[in-house]
C-alpha cells in the first residue's frame, strides 16, 4: 500500500516536472506555485528516501538475513545512526523481529533501539512485549532484570497494566538486583501514567522495607519522584536507612541523604536553640538505647533526639567518600541539621573537594560562599586554600574572591588586602574590577582598614586601565558616602582626574560626589559644572542625568556663580533626545527655579535635593542564597528550579518519635539479655549478691506475669541497663560473628556456652536462626541492626532469665521475617521508662551504664580470613579510642586551668587547656590552647608573650594579638616542650602596658600522646619494660567505675593515651608515648575481685610512671 502510493506520487512528481519544463517559459507566476507544490511532495516522501535509501535498504536486508554476524553488523550501524541523532525509525519492523535473538549483544542493541523508538511506533512495539513477558520468568536474574528494564522503558501507554503487574512481581523477587530494577521501573511507570500513583506507592512502601543495600538507593529515588510528601512511609524505615547508609552505593547515598535531611527537618526539634545542652547529646551518642531516659529528662532545655544523633553519626564517615556529590550532601546535611558547633567538621572535606575538577570546584565554592557568610570561623583556617591562581577560570576566581571577602576580619584583613593587591594587577580585567569591589566591601565591613583601602583605591585611580579606574571610582563613591567628612582631599583628587576618565559610570559617580559634597569643594564644583556644560551633548545619558543633578544642587548652594550655567544646562536638557533627561530637566526646573506655579515645593527644594542620604551597604551576592537548601540546583542558580522541595522549618514540638520505633527496638530488645549476662560475667563474684538479688527479683516478677510483656518490662529493663555497659563487647562479638556467616554461629556458641542453663533450648533456636543468616546479605554492614541481631538472639534467649525468654522465644521462632516480633518489642520499649527508676539500685546502675553499643557501621566486606577476626576486633573498639582522641574531644571533658585571673591581670584573664592534638610547630611540643578574655573596660593591645628566663623550656609563642576588645575573647595556641617533666613553664604574658608572670604546669597525663598498638605488640613491648621499668599498685576502684566504658573514660581523662583492643574482659590496656622523647608508656589495668584492680605502668620514665600511677589511682577511686 505504502509502496504503491509512493510510486504513484513519484509518477505524479515526474509528470509535474515535465509539465513544468514546458510551462516554465510561459508563465513565471505559475512556476512558484508549482515548485512549492513540488517541494511539498518531495519533502513528504521523496527526500528522506533518497538520502537514506541506499543505506537503510541494505541495513534492512542485513537485518533480515539469516546470518547472525550480518545482523549484528547492521545493528551496530543502526546504533551509530541513533548516536548521531539520525532518524532510523523506519527500520523498526526489521529490527523488532530480532528481539528474541539468542545472541546477547544483538539483543542488547535491539533493546537500545526499542527504547529509543518504541514511543514513535507504538503498534509495532507491542510485538516485542510477549518476549519480555517470557523473559520476566527466566531463571537468570539478570535476564529478568534487563527484561523489566526494557519493558518499563518502552513508553507506550497501552502496556501500563502489564508494566504494573511486572513491577509488582519483581518487587517481590528473590534477587535484590531485580528488586532494584523494579524500583527504577516505578519511576518510569509513574512518568508514563501518573494515575497509577496509589498502586505504585504500595510497591514503594513494600520496597522501602527491603533490607538490601542494593535496593535502598533506588527505592528512595522512586519515593522522591513519586510521593515525596508521604513522609509517613519513612518513619518505620528511618533507622534502617541510617544504618545501611554506609554500604549503599554512592549514588544511592546522595539521594538517601537528601531525603533524610528533609525528613529530619520535619521530625526533630531544632538543635540551634540557646542553651542547648550538648553534653547531653554526647551522652546520647554513646547511648542509643537511652530513649526511655530521654523522655524523663525532658525538662532540660534541649536534648537531641537519639535518632537525630544517629543520622549525624552515620553520615559522618561518608565525608571520606571519594564521590564529591556524597561529600557535598553530607556537608549540607550537617549544615541544615547539626548543632552549630558540630558543623565545622565538614570544612576539611569541603576544602579537599577544591582539588577536584573545575566544575566541582565551581559548585563547592558556591556553597562555601553561602556558608562563609554565616559562619566565618568555619573556613577561616583554610583561607589560603581560596587564594586565586592565575590559571583559574574566571568564575572560579570571582567565587574565591567572594569567599575571601566573606572571611575578612580584623585579624586577617592585612593578609587579605596584600593578596588583593596582587589580584588588582591581574591581566584579567574583569577579575581586577571584581577585586576592587571586594576591597570596597572589606573597607565598609571592617572600619579599621577603611582608610587604608580608600588610599589604595585612590592610587588605583591613576591606573592605566579604564575598567580598573572606573570600578575604583564607583567603589570610592560608595565608601565616601559612609564617611564624607574627612575626605575632601579625595574628592578634589577625583575632580582632577575627571578629564581623563571616560567610562560613563565613573564619570557619573564623580559628578554625583561633586554635587553631594559641593559645599566642601566650593571652588572646584562650579568648575566641573562649567566643563560639563561644554561637553553636555556628547555625554552618555547617565552622565547627563548626573550633570543635571549637579547643576541643581550647585544652584541651591551657590547660585551666584552657577545660575547661568544651570540655566544653560537645563535648556540643553530640555531638548535632549532622551525622554528621561527631558523629564528630569523639567522636574528640576520646576523645583529649583522659583516661579508662581511652583508653590510650596520650591521652599523645600534644598531639603529634597540635599537630604542626607544613607550610605549604601555593600553586600555579598550570596547573602540571600541560604533560602535554598545547600547543594541543590536551585542554590546553584539562585532561582527555584522546577521540582525543588523547600526544606521545612524545624517543628516547635517534635512529632511522636515512637513512630520510628519498630525497627531498632528489635535489636535492642534482643540484645538486652546478653548484655545482662555479659555484665554478670564481668562483674564477677564481688557483685554477685547484688545481681543475684536482681535476678531473683526478675524471676519473681517474670513468673508473676509470665505472658505479658508489660509487667515484666521493669525487670528486663533493669537487666538491660545493668548489662549495657558490656554492650560494647557484645557488639564487638556479634560483629565478629557476623563477619562471616559460617563463624557466626560458633561465635554465639562460644559466648552462650558460658551460661549453663537452657542449652537445649538454645540449640533448637539456633537451628531456626541459622537458615536466614546464611542466606542473608553478604555484607555485614548492617550487623548491628538486623542480620546481626540473629546471632545475639540465640545467646539472648539462652542467657537471660527464663522469665523473659518464655514469651520472647515464641516470637523469635517465627520472626524469620521479623514482622511479628517488632510489634511486640515496641510495646515493650514503650512501657519501660515508667518503671525504670523504681529502686535505688536501678538508678545507680543506670547512671554508670549510660552509653551505647559501638556504632557499628561495620566493615564492608565479609571474607573468610583468619586475619579478619582480629581486624574486626580493632574495628569495633575503634569507636571508643578514636572518638576520645581526635574526633570528638568534647566527649573527654577538657579540664581548663586558670593561667591568669582577671583580678591579678588587670582585666585580662587567661585560661588554658590541653587540646590533645599533635603540636603543629614541633612534634616534641605539647600543644596548649590559651583562651584570653578581656574583662576590663577598655581595649587591650599587643598581647604577647614576653621574655622568658634563660634555660627555661622552649616555647612556641602565639602571634601577638594586636587588639582585644572589651568582653571579647580569643583562643590562641602555643606549643611547649616540657621535655617529659612536669616542670612548669614560666613565662610572661604582656600587654601594651603590663606584664604578668604566669606558669603552665602540665598534668603528667598531658605529656603523652596516644599510640596505636595491637594486643600482641602491647604484650611484646610490655615484656621489654619489666623490672625497674614497671610500677604497679593494687587500687581500690569505686564500684561505679567497673564498667569498661567508665574505665576508659576515667583513664583517658587523666592521660592522653590510646586504647589497645583487648581480648579479655577484665583487662584494659592503654598505650601512649611521651611527647618529647617518644618513650613508650604502657598502662594496663586488671580488674580483680571485690572492686580492686591491679594497675601496672610500664615505662622507662620511672618518675612519670609513679606520678601517672598516682593520678590514675585517684581518678579510678572517685565515683
Amino acid at each position, binding site marked *: 500500500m505504502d509502496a504503491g502510493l509512493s510510486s504513484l506520487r513519484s509518477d505524479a512528481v515526474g509528470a509535474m516536472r515535465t509539465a513544468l519544463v514546458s510551462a516554465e517559459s510561459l508563465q513565471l507566476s505559475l512556476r512558484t506555485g508549482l515548485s512549492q507544490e513540488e517541494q511539498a511532495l518531495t519533502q513528504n516522501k521523496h527526500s528522506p528516501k533518497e538520502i537514506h535509501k541506499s543505506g537503510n535498504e541494505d541495513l534492512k536486508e542485513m537485518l533480515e538475513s539469516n546470518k547472525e554476524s550480518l545482523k549484528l553488523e547492521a545493528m551496530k550501524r543502526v546504533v551509530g545512526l541513533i548516536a548521531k*541523532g539520525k532518524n532510523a525509525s523506519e527500520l523498526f519492523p526489521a529490527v523488532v523481529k530480532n528481539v528474541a535473538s539468542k545472541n*546477547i549483544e544483538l539483543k542488547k542493541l535491539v533493546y537500545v533501539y526499542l527504547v529509543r523508538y518504541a514511543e514513535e511506533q507504538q503498534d509495532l512495539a507491542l510485538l516485542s512485549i510477549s518476549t519480555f513477558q517470557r523473559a520476566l520468568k527466566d531463571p537468570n536474574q539478570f535476564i529478568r532484570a534487563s527484561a523489566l528494564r526494557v519493558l518499563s522503558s518502552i513508553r507506550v501507554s497501552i502496556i501500563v497494566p502489564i508494566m504494573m503487574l511486572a513491577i509488582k512481581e519483581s518487587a517481590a523477587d528473590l534477587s535484590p538486583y531485580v528488586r532494584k530494577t523494579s524500583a527504577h521501573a516505578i519511576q518510569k511507570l509513574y512518568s508514563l501514567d501518573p494515575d497509577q500513583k496509589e498502586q505504585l506507592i504500595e510497591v514503594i512502601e513494600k520496597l522501602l522495607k527491603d533490607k538490601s543495600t542494593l535496593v535502598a538507593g533506588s527505592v528512595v529515588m522512586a519515593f522522591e519522584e513519586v510521593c515525596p510528601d508521604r513522609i509517613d512511609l519513612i518513619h518505620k524505615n528511618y533507622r534502617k536507612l541510617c544504618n545501611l547508609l554506609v554500604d549503599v552505593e554512592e549514588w544511592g547515598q546522595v539521594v538517601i541523604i537528601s531525603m533524610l535531611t528533609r525528613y529530619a527537618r520535619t521530625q526533630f526539634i531544632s538543635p540551634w536553640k540557646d542553651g542547648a545542652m550538648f553534653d547531653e547529646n554526647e551522652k546520647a551518642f554513646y547511648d542509643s538505647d537511652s530513649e526511655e531516659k530521654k523522655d524523663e529528662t525532658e525538662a532540660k532545655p534541649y536534648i537531641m533526639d537519639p535518632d537525630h544523633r544517629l543520622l549525624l553519626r552515620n553520615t559522618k564517615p561518608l565525608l571520606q567518600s571519594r564521590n564529591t*556529590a556524597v561529600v557535598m550532601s553530607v556537608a549540607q546535611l550537617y549544615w541544615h541539621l547539626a548543632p552549630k558547633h558540630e558543623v565545622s567538621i565538614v570544612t576539611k572535606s569541603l576544602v579537599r573537594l577544591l582539588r577536584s575538577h*573545575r*566544575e566541582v570546584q565551581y559548585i563547592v565554592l558556591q556553597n562555601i560562599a553561602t556558608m562563609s557568610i554565616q559562619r566565618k570561623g568555619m573556613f577561616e583556617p583554610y583561607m589560603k586554600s581560596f587564594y586565586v591562581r592565575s590559571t583559574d577560570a574566571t568564575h572560579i576566581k570571582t567565587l574565591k574572591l567572594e569567599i575571601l571577602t566573606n572571611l575578612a576580619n580584623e585579624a586577617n584583613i592585612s593578609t587579605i588586602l596584600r593578596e588583593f593587591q596582587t589580584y588588582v594587577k591581574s591581566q584579567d580585567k574583569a577579575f581586577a574590577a571584581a577585586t576592587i569591589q571586594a576591597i570596597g566591601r572589606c573597607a565598609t565591613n571592617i572600619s579599621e582598614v577603611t582608610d587604608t583601602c580608600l588610599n589604595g583605591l585612590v592610587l588605583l585611580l591613576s591606573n*592605566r586601565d579604564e575598567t580598573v579606574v572606573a570600578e575604583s571610582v564607583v567603589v570610592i563613591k560608595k565608601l565616601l558616602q559612609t564617611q564624607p567628612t574627612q575626605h575632601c582631599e579625595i574628592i578634589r583628587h577625583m575632580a582632577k582626574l575627571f578629564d581623563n576618565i571616560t567610562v560613563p559610570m565613573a564619570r557619573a559617580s564623580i559628578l554625583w560626589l561633586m554635587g553631594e559634597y559641593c559645599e566642601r569643594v566650593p571652588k572646584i564644583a562650579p568648575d566641573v559644572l562649567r566643563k560639563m556644560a561644554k561637553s553636555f551633548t556628547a555625554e552618555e545619558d547617565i552622565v547627563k542625568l548626573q550633570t543635571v543633578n549637579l547643576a541643581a544642587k550647585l544652584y541651591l548652594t551657590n547660585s551666584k556663580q552657577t545660575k547661568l550655567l544651570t540655566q544653560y544646562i537645563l535648556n540643553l536638557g530640555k531638548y535632549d533626545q532622551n525622554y528621561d533627561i527631558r523629564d528630569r530637566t523639567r522636574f528640576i526646573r520646576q523645583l529649583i527655579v522659583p516661579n508662581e506655579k511652583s508653590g510650596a515645593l520650591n521652599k523645600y527644594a534644598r531639603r529634597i535635593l540635599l537630604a542626607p542620604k544613607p550610605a549604601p551597604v555593600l553586600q555579598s551576592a550570596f547573602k540571600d542564597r541560604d533560602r535554598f537548601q545547600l547543594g541543590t540546583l536551585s542554590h546553584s542558580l539562585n532561582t527555584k528550579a522546577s521540582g525543588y522541595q523547600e526544606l521545612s522549618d524545624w517543628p516547635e514540638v517534635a512529632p511522636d518519635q515512637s513512630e520510628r520505633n519498630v525497627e531498632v527496638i528489635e535489636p535492642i530488645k534482643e540484645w538486652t539479655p546478653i548484655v545482662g549476662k555479659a555484665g554478670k560475667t564481668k562483674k564477677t563474684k564481688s557483685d554477685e549478691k547484688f545481681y543475684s538479688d536482681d535476678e531473683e527479683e526478675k524471676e519473681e516478677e517474670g513468673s508473676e506475669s509470665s505472658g505479658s510483656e508489660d509487667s515484666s518490662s521493669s525487670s528486663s529493663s533493669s537487666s538491660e541497663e545493668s548489662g549495657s555497659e558490656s554492650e560494647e563487647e557484645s557488639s564487638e562479638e556479634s560483629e565478629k560473628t557476623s563477619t562471616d556467616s559460617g563463624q557466626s554461629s560458633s561465635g554465639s556458641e562460644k559466648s552462650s556456652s558460658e551460661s549453663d542453663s537452657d542449652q537445649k533450648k538454645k540449640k533448637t533456636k539456633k537451628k531456626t536462626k541459622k537458615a536466614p543468616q546464611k542466606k542473608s546479605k553478604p555484607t555485614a554492614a548492617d550487623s548491628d541492626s538486623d542480620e546481626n541481631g540473629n546471632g545475639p538472639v540465640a545467646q539472648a534467649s539462652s542467657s537471660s532469665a527464663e522469665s523473659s525468654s518464655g514469651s520472647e522465644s515464641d516470637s523469635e521462632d517465627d520472626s524469620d521475617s521479623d514482622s511479628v516480633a517488632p510489634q511486640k518489642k515496641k510495646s515493650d520499649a514503650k512501657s519501660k521508662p515508667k518503671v525504670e527508676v523504681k529502686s535505688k539500685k536501678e538508678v545507680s546502675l543506670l547512671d554508670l551504664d549510660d552509653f551505647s553499643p559501638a556504632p557499628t557501621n561495620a566493615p564492608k566486606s565479609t571474607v573468610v580470613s583468619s*586475619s579478619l577476626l582480629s581486624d574486626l576486633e580493632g574495628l569495633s573498639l575503634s569507636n571508643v579510642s578514636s572518638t576520645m582522641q581526635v574526633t570528638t574531644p568534647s566527649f573527654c571533658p577538657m579540664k581548663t586551668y586558670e593561667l591568669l585571673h582577671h583580678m591579678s591581670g588587670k582585666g585580662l584573664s587567661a585560661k588554658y587547656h590541653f587540646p590533645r592534638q599533635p603540636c603543629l610547630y614541633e612534634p616534641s611540643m605539647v600543644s596548649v590552647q590559651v583562651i584570653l578574655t578581656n574583662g576590663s573596660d577598655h581595649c587591650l593591645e599587643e598581647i604577647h608573650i614576653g621574655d622568658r628566663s634563660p634555660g627555661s623550656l622552649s616555647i612556641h609563642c602565639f602571634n601577638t594579638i594586636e587588639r582585644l576588645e572589651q568582653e571579647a575573647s580569643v583562643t590562641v595556641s602555643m606549643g611547649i616542650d616540657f621535655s617529659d617533666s612536669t616542670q612548669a613553664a614560666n613565662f610572661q604574658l604582656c600587654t601594651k602596658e603590663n606584664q604578668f608572670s604566669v606558669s603552665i604546669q602540665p598534668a603528667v597525663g598531658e605529656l603523652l600522646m596516644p599510640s596505636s598498638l595491637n594486643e600482641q605488640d602491647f604484650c611484646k613491648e610490655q615484656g621489654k619494660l619489666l623490672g625497674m621499668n614497671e610500677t604497679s599498685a593494687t587500687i581500690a576502684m569505686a564500684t561505679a567505675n567497673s564498667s569498661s566504658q567508665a574505665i576508659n573514660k576515667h583513664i583517658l581523662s587523666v592521660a592522653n593515651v590510646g586504647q589497645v583492643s583487648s581480648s579479655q574482659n577484665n583487662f584494659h590496656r592503654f598505650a601512649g608515648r611521651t611527647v618529647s622523647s617518644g618513650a613508650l608508656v604502657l598502662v594496663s589495668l586488671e580488674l580483680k575481685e571485690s572492686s580492686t584492680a591491679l594497675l601496672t605502668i610500664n615505662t622507662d620514665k620511672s618518675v612519670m610512671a609513679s606520678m601517672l600511677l598516682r593520678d590514675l589511682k585517684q581518678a579510678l577511686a572517685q565515683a
Partner: protein
Amino acid sequence: MIHSLFLVNASGDIFLEKHWKSVVSRSVCDYFFEAQERATEPENVPPVIPTPHHYLISVLRHRIYFVAVIQSEVPPLFVIEFLHRVVDTFQDYFGVCTEAAIKDNVVVVYELLEEMLDNGFPLATESNILKELIKPPTILRTMVNTITGSTNVGEQLPTGQLSVVPWRRTGVKYTNNEAYFDVVEEIDAIIDKSGSTITAEIQGVIDACVKLTGMPDLTLSFMNPRLLDDVSFHPCVRFKRWEAERILSFIPPDGNFRLLSYHVSSQNLVAIPVYVKHNITFREGSSQGRFDLTLGPKQTMGKAVESVLVSSQLPRGVLNANLNPSQGTYTFDPVTKMLSWDVGKINPQKLPSLKGTMSLQAGASKPDENPTINIQLKIQQMAISGLKVNRLDMYGEKYKPFKGIKYMTKAGKFQVRT
C-alpha cells in the same frame, strides 16, 4: 534525573547524543552554544546553564563538552560527578577520550551509557562490573571480532553485582601475583615575588595496580600516618580500622584503582623543591623587555629534579621573545603569548637559566603585572611530605605476591608570582 547527554566538540558540533527518557531535541544545546560564545575561554563556560524548560550541566574534559540535560531539581554535583565518571570510564576503555576514539567505538560507548544509567539514575559505574558486562576493545579482540563476527559483550552474565565484594569479581586468576602501589604527591603552592611561600599544600594519592588471584585481603600501614590530614578512600577500605589504627585494610578491586587520596594540610611546613630567580622587566616607553630566569633545586633531599617544564602567559603586549636557554628548548607562541621552556633535569652544579629580551608592541604601555610562572616537575623516589609505607601484608590467600611501592613527587598547581 539525567535526561539526555550530548557530546559537543571544540568547534561546537554535537557528535553523539543519548537519551534515557523521552527524546529531547538537540536544539536545547543552542543555549549552551550561546554561553560558549559568550565565554572567552573554553573553561569559562558556566557548568550550570538554565534554559526555559531544562537545565544544562556540562563538564569539559579533553576538549569535549559533556552536556547533560536535566529537567528538575537534582544536586548539580551528582550530575557533574557522574559525567566525570563517564569520562573516566571512556578513558579506561579506549585509552584516550577523544572525539575520534568515541566515534570509532560508538557502539561500545552506547552500551556503556546504557549500563551506567537507567532512567537517568546511575546503575553500574564501577569499572570492574562494567568490564564484565562489556569487554573493552583491544586491537586483538577487534581483529578477532571482525573475523569471527563475535562481539564485545561479555558471554557470561556478570556475577559482580551480587558478589560479596561489589567492587571485585570472583574467580580472578593470575600466574604472576603482583601488587604495585604508587604514592604520588603533588605540591600546590603560590610563591610570591620575593620567593617566600604564600601558600603551599600537598595533595597525595596512592594509586594501586593489584593483580592477585582469588580474594586477597591486604593491609597497608604507614610509618607516619599522622601526616595525613584529610583522606578519602576507595569504597573498599575499611574505615573503622583506619580510624582506630591508621592502617589501610582492604580487599582490593582487580586491576588499577585509586586506593586513597589525601591532603597534608598547609599548617605543616611544606618543602618547596625548587626556587626561581627571576628578573622580568618592562621599561616604560621602550619596546624592549628583559627576561631572565634561573631555576635551582632547594629542599629536595638529595634527589634529582626531573622533567621540569616552565610555562608562563606573557602579557598581551609582548610581540616576540628572543631568549637563550642554557639547557633545554623553549617555545613562544605569539598568538596565545604562551612561553614554555622544557628544561629537563636540573643540574645543581650548573643551574639552568633562560635569558634574553622580549620585544613589545610599539607604543603599547607597560603591562601592569609581570607574568606568573607555572612550574611542572617530577622527583622520583621521594614523597615530599615524608610519608612512608611501613609494610604491606596479605591475608586470605596462600601464595606469596610480588609487592612494590614507588614514590613520586610532582608539582601540582605550582605558581611563582613575579
